[in-house]
């Protein structure tokens, strides 16, 4: 993972890291300090105890190998539906040898690292709250969920689902539900519910890309790759880039996600189809990210995180308002005529959602 250290770190970020990161990110601070020796103007800013003026707006997203400081607690429900179950691995303890326990531990660490390093958010609440998860929940339980306090993962039935901790996008998805709950708190019903789902898919996909060092073109844009057994004709639960194509199986049927607002599904089931209609904003996000290229967390991730945490989203925000807020966030960060803002506008147009003027 050291391959990126020199390539993607602009000097002003090195200065910021060297200046502010000493205690929490000793590796990053040290690396930044060494790099700064060769960069006189920035070093002078640093010597005066200041950040370069252009450093304030852009949080450090660099050094994916630098650790963050999560406080993880993994419990084992041992096949019961009793929460939290028995605590089996705390922060800093070695791997247990139980795949579900260790995958949850690692996935939560990866997710914490992305939120912390890229978006400057320490854990779900932003102030380092413990990340609690329970694995081996229920008997052949085909699901993973966020219950307001913890992430819960079943083992799957073994016929269709092979367990829910072996996809980092699923772990990121669940943790992101906690972040949404603590920020925009989008109501889990209808369009705001589909946006809640969409936000979890966005950060789930980004965690996977960040951890693997994938740019937008190399990314799969799949949610839940690897959770189906080999018997299923399908790649994943959802495709953000091509909603409706993730699986087509004799038993499961065909992925029903719509990819365009014209195909929005009205239903009483699934809280108004929150896991179906999320396909529409998902495609907008993936289209803009792939049009821009590069690391999606650097541009689209920042725009979406800024939107989510702007304080401007009502709990019942619908697609058009949300789209308008993403255009606003893109304009604020990158400029109204920037290619980032244009990509966001074009992507919403491609899925039939006209951003509201906000």
């Amino acid at each position, binding site marked *: 993972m050291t391959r990126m250290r020199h390539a993607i770190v602009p000097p002003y970020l090195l200065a910021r890291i060297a200046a502010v990161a000493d205690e929490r990110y000793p590796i990053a601070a040290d690396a930044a300090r060494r790099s700064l020796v060769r960069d006189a103007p920035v070093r002078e800013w640093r010597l005066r105890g200041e950040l370069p003026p252009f450093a304030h707006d852009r949080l450090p997203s660099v050094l994916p190998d630098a650790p963050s400081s999560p406080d993880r607690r993994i419990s084992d429900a041992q096949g019961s539906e009793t929460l939290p179950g028995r605590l089996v691995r705390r922060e800093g303890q070695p791997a247990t040898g139980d795949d579900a326990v260790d995958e949850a531990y690692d996935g939560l660490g990866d997710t914490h690292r992305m939120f912390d390093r890229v978006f400057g958010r320490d854990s779900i609440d932003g102030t380092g709250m413990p990340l609690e998860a329970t694995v081996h929940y229920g008997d052949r339980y085909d699901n993973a969920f966020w219950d307001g306090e913890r992430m819960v993962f079943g083992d799957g039935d073994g016929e269709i689902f092979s367990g829910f901790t072996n996809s980092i996008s699923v772990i990121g998805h669940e943790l992101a539900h906690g972040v949404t709950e603590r920020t925009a708190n989008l109501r889990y019903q209808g369009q705001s519910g589909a946006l809640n789902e969409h936000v979890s898919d966005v950060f789930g996909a980004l965690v996977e890309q960040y951890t693997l060092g994938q740019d937008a073109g190399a990314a799969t844009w799949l949610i839940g790759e690897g959770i189906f057994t080999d018997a299923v004709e399908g790649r994943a639960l959802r495709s953000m880039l091509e909603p409706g194509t993730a699986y087509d199986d004799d038993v499961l049927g065909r992925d029903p996600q719509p990819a365009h607002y014209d195909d929005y599904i009205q239903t009483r*089931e*699934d809280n108004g189809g929150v896991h*179906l209609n999320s396909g529409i904003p998902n495609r907008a996000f993936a289209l803009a990210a792939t049009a821009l290229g590069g690391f999606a967390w650097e541009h689209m991730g920042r725009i979406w995180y800024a939107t989510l945490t702007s304080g401007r989203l009502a709990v019942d925000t619908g697609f058009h308002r949300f789209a308008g807020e993403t255009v606003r966030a893109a304009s604020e960060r990158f400029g109204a005529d920037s290619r980032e803002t244009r990509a966001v506008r074009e992507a919403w147009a491609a899925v039939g959602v006209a951003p509201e003027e906000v």
Partner: protein
Amino acid sequence: MDVSVSRSGGIGGLRLVWEVDLDREPDRESWEVLLHDIPWDEVPPAPPEPDRFIYRIRCEPHEATLAERQVTGPWRELVDRVRARSEPRRAASGPRRAR
């Protein structure tokens, strides 16, 4: 007389429906005892939780929608029994679109 259990939601948004025709069940009487205990009209509204299952349970003329954490006591007994006695049918959550 049919009892049906529809489960939607979950991180996959996959809907499953289990149905049992009581007229074909050998122990119909015990089903009726169980159904008699079901508090159809006493399900309080529950705030939705991300990715949790939602159960819609029907037995004419009754119908109730329950959050996963409300499926306890006689409800749980009924759901488990219906699931044990039938193979699930996978159903779309909305109208299927022609492609």
